[in-house]
């Protein structure tokens, strides 16, 4: 059968590509379609379908795809096909969730069918092909048959008028779903359209990555609001591209952006983590890059963190005081004590402190999990990547077609991705905060991955912690990024609180607080040892805070801490000490926590290349933080102290931290004045 024959007998012989991972449904669908006299090609893999489509786009007229597929999200496939090949896609699903249907429609599906598919429905799907043909590149000819229907006599298309006459046009316009006579009319009409030079059907434009990139560049240059197809076309300066092509692509792009921004706003709404993270990450990244000497404490990140609402409580007094310690500073390797301080502050701070802690990379080596893992590879999302992360990462990476868009959607995201990709820091930052929020902002595949990796690392690390108290706050953060990931996932994350739960579930119930703690104490990928040290310090210090009798703990803690300090890189020692701390604290800590920490220790020890396993352990033990706030306060306090003093010793760091810790009992960040020196505060005096 020649092509012309097929066209003439349209919709008979219409070429359909059916994609469904369920073999039962696929077989039934195939036979149903054959019964409708279509030409059917089937595959149970979305990737294979894409390959076939890309190989020869003109081999198919219509694509039917299932929504839930293991290798690729049906909606993603839908978007890609719509963008690249501009073929009509029909979605197929087992359940009629309104949200999903809406998603299908907004992604550009021409129809949404429910299983079990009935043959009557399949008998009508050819109309989508006709509509698409007529609406697309010949927009300016008012090529749609619908429009021509009433105006057949006068307007536009000679082809319509020539052969079919107004009657047929009207028929086409009004009675699409009708019978075979219609089909013939349509076929003829299409044939006419094809033949007629004035309304010649322009070949469909394939929006390749290159083309799309130019398009996005042009749009950005003009500004999304001012982007009109004509100007875009001029800017792009591509031969053979018509205004209509650009117009329809722009429409799709706008839809895509709207979706993405909705996701972003959802994330933002969840806790301001997005902006927070973004800022933080960007700053962190910048800091990371610049990585000045120890004393440097860029504030932007911190300040931004302060403003973010994530750790509102902690932020307000602490952050302000922390000003000197921006997240970026945290990232900076140099300052050890300072870093600690920064780590103390909420998320951003925490990160900073961890990083600056040690300049020596060896320390960083020791940094538990996330940091370590991160430091090796930028985009190493593997460590502790939770389900979510994996999903997210894959989600983003899968949407390669939208790479540009993603970047444009989140302005900060550009910075983020680089940050995320370039340095373990980003990972760390993610880890610190469990922060997915940052990642989502970036939307870039890289950043996204990085973001995900970060939290995941943390999560791993925190996995042992079952302490959910702190987790709540932390969970917010991690939760946030997840929504962003969601665009490519079918199930959007519920708002913060729930997210936390989800996150934790996915991650394997890693205690959130633990993660947060970890974040703080464990700078993400930073290879800086100081971070690790910081971590350990924080851990040690923090731990006491969680105890009801801080003073006692503090003593113990301090002991541990000192030990750790003296041999920060002595994993054995620290390990021992930390385990000691662990055990001592254990009674206070939940049994699980203790258990977790122990197990964590083991895992971490394995992970740590050298230095401070103790740090990790401390972290583990620390799971008990009563609240992130308290923890943060602790951190902040110590940070303040640190900032001022430029300590080089853990003791310096610890003292303020301890002091803070003790102060925290009063629940007051009063001492954030930061004038805590490095003098060791007697435990008793602080209480």
């Amino acid at each position: 059968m020649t092509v012309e024959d097929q066209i003439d007998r349209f919709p008979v012989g219409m070429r359909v590509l059916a994609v469904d991972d369920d073999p039962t449904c696929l077989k039934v669908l195939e036979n149903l379609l054959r019964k409708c006299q279509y030409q059917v090609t089937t595959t149970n893999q979305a990737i294979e379908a894409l390959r076939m489509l890309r190989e020869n786009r003109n081999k198919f007229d219509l694509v039917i795809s299932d929504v839930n597929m293991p290798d690729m999200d049906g909606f993603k496939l839908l978007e890609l096909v719509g963008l690249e090949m501009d073929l009509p896609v029909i979605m197929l699903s087992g359940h009629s969730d309104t949200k999903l249907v809406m998603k299908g429609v907004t992604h550009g599906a021409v129809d949404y069918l429910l299983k079990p598919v009935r043959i009557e429905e399949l008998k009508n799907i050819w109309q989508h092909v006709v509509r698409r043909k007529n609406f697309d590149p010949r927009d300016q000819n008012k090529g749609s048959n619908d429009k021509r229907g009433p105006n057949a006599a006068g307007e536009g298309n000679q082809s319509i008028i020539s052969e079919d006459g107004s009657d047929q046009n009207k028929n086409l316009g009004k009675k699409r779903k009708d019978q075979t006579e219609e089909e013939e009319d349509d076929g003829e009409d299409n044939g006419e359209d094809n033949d007629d030079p004035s309304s010649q059907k322009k070949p469909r434009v394939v929006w390749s990555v290159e083309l799309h990139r130019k398009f996005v560049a042009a749009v950005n240059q003009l500004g999304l609001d001012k982007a009109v197809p004509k100007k875009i076309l001029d800017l792009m300066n591509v031969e053979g591209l018509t205004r209509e092509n650009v117009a329809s692509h722009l429409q799709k792009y706008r839809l895509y952006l709207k979706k993405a921004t909705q996701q972003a706003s959802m994330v933002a709404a969840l806790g301001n983590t997005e902006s927070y993270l973004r800022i933080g990450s960007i700053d962190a990244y910048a800091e990371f890059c610049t990585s000045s000497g120890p004393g440097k404490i860029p504030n932007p990140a911190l300040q931004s963190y302060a403003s973010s609402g994530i750790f509102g409580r902690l932020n307000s007094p602490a952050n302000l005081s922390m000003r000197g310690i921006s997240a970026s500073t945290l990232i900076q390797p140099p300052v050890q004590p300072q870093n600690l301080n920064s780590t103390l502050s909420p998320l951003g701070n925490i990160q900073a402190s961890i990083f600056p802690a040690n300049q020596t990379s060896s320390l960083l080596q020791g940094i538990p999990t996330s940091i370590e893992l991160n430091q090796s590879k930028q985009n190493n999302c593997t460590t502790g990547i939770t389900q979510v992360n994996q999903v997210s990462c894959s989600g983003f990476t899968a949407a390669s077609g939208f790479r540009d868009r993603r970047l444009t959607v989140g302005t900060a995201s550009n910075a983020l991705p680089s940050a995320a990709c370039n340095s373990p820091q980003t990972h760390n930052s993610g880890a610190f905060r469990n922060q997915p929020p940052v990642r989502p902002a970036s939307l870039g595949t890289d950043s996204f991955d990085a973001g995900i990796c970060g939290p995941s690392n943390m999560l791993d690390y925190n996995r042992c912690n079952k302490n959910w108290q702190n987790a709540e706050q932390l969970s917010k953060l991690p939760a946030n990024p997840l929504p962003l990931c969601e665009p490519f996932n079918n199930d959007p994350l519920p708002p913060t609180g729930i997210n936390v739960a989800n996150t934790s579930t996915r991650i394997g119930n890693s205690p959130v607080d633990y993660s947060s703690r970890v974040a703080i104490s464990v700078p993400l990928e930073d290879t800086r040892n100081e971070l690790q040290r910081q971590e350990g310090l924080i851990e040690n210090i923090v731990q006491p805070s969680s105890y009801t009798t801080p003073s006692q703990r503090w003593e113990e803690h301090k002991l541990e801490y000192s030990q750790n300090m003296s041999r920060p890189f002595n994993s054995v020692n620290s390990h021992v000490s930390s385990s000691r701390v662990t055990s001592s604290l254990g009674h206070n800590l939940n049994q699980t926590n203790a258990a977790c920490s122990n197990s964590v220790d083991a895992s971490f020890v394995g992970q740590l290349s050298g230095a401070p396993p103790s740090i990790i352990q401390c972290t583990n033990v620390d799971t008990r933080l009563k609240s992130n706030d308290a923890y943060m306060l602790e951190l902040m306090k110590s940070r303040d102290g640190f900032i001022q003093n430029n300590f080089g010793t853990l003791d310096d760091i610890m003292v303020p931290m301890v002091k803070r810790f003790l102060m925290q009992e009063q629940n007051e960040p009063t001492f954030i004045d930061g004038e805590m020196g490095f003098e060791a505060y007697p435990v008793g005096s602080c209480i």
Partner: protein
Amino acid sequence: MLGLGADLLWADMNRLLAFLFHQGVLDEQFLQLQQLQDETSPNFVSEVVNIYFHESEKLLRNLRGLLMEREFSDYKKMGIHLNQLTGSSSSIGAKRVTNVCLAFRAATDHNNRSGCLRALEMLEHEYCYLKNKLHELFQIEQQRVLAAGVRYPVQNN
């Protein structure tokens, strides 16, 4: 005589089918499947149903495995398996199985583990019942075809 045998078997088959429809085990989608069976795909129904059995058993095993975990919490993964089972069951017209799947899904939406367990048991029960009945149906069909084939070379239903 042979023809009579074939007719009897035909009657048996119809009776069984009517019974299954009446019970709600099957619905009109199964009829559509039967209509799709023709000269070009003479064994369409049994092929599809066999694929369905194969896949469903896998899914049911997965579901059972997930629910039996001591620390089960992965409702999402269960949801994925369940989705596929729902889709395929409805595609072949297994109405009762589909309904139980829907109830199962509701339980997963509420993270109701005990509800899920109950639903799973019911699902397994319904599935076994369906499988037995369909096997019986196919047996009768086979015999009928054989019997009819003896009498006539081609006997379409």
